[in-house]
């Protein structure tokens, strides 16, 4: 810890706390999860960045979407995302959540994940190397520092549109809206 970071700690301890203690929820979608075990265990050791996996969304604040998202998985992803406490950060891992990837013409795979939940950052590649996760984490640090990782605020403000998009796929959802459905900006 040098002088500037100590200054930052005194200025905004909450921001620094969120930065250096990113807890990722155990959630495996698709093939990308195979890159995560080496990341959290001895080979690459994500714990030195403060990233540890936790088993329940109530304790997590980082959501790695690892790989293609089918419709059934998307339902679970939305529920998990809504259970996580604010502030929360989402990172799409691999090319499939970005635009469908090799499943671009599949009948059951989501093409653009950010139509349904807000995503703060993407890692491209098929598959990305485990080091890419660390680059994503350090990018997320700078984004949190500059106040750019505001996906959860966007979700609250534009919840109506996100919910509409979700209901276009699933019909009526079986859980009540998380936020009031009217638009804040009128």
């Amino acid at each position, binding site marked *: 810890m040098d002088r500037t970071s100590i200054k930052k700690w005194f200025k905004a301890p909450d921001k620094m706390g969120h930065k250096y203690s990113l807890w990722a929820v155990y959630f495996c979608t698709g093939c990308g999860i195979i890159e995560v075990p080496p990341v959290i265990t001895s080979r690459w050791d994500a714990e030195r960045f403060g990233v540890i996996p936790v088993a329940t969304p109530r304790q997590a604040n980082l959501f790695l979407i690892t790989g293609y998202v089918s*419709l059934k998985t998307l339902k679970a992803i939305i529920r998990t995302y809504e259970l996580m406490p604010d502030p929360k950060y989402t990172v799409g891992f691999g090319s499939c959540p970005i635009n469908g990837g090799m499943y671009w013409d*599949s*009948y059951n795979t989501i*093409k*653009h994940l*950010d139509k349904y939940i807000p995503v703060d950052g993407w890692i491209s590649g098929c598959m990305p190397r485990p080091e890419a996760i660390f680059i994503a984490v350090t990018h997320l640090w700078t984004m949190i520092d500059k106040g750019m990782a505001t996906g959860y605020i966007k979700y609250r403000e534009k919840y109506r*549109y996100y919910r509409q*998009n979700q209901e*276009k796929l*699933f019909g009526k959802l079986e859980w009540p809206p998380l936020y009031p459905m009217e638009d804040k900006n009128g």
Partner: protein
Amino acid sequence: MDESLKKELETTFRNVLVSLPEDDRMVVAASEETVLSILSFLKNKGYDHLELISCVDWIEEKKFELVYILTSYSEKEMRKHIILKTKISREKSEFKTAISVFENAEPYERELHELFGINFKGHPKLTHLFLERDYKIPPFRKDFDTREYVKEVFDKIPFVEDKK
């Protein structure tokens, strides 16, 4: 694979074509009516495990080909695969359920109903297994246009940013 089983099958059932393409594999092509009796016949012979039910869409012939793959757990010499094929009409797309012979046919038949739209008569619960949405044409049929479907459903959902 022994020749005796082949002979026995050919003599017992009519319209049965048996071939032995490889050492541990036997392909039986049968007509629609005899499939269930062949299944129970093979089960009594010791082939007591249904590995898989699959389906092929022959769109030019207007046929669906159902494929039953059997093997044996109980005897070591019989750990070979018997592949039982039958063709059914594509338009009608109906068949009898095999649950009475092999109970584990239930999820496979449900899957085929979902992906190919084949109705298995006598199946207790033909509902969704994997899919979340209802499709007009079942998505594994050859005439299902995936690109058209993606354009119609996924591409029409707007980005949230675009709505100002």
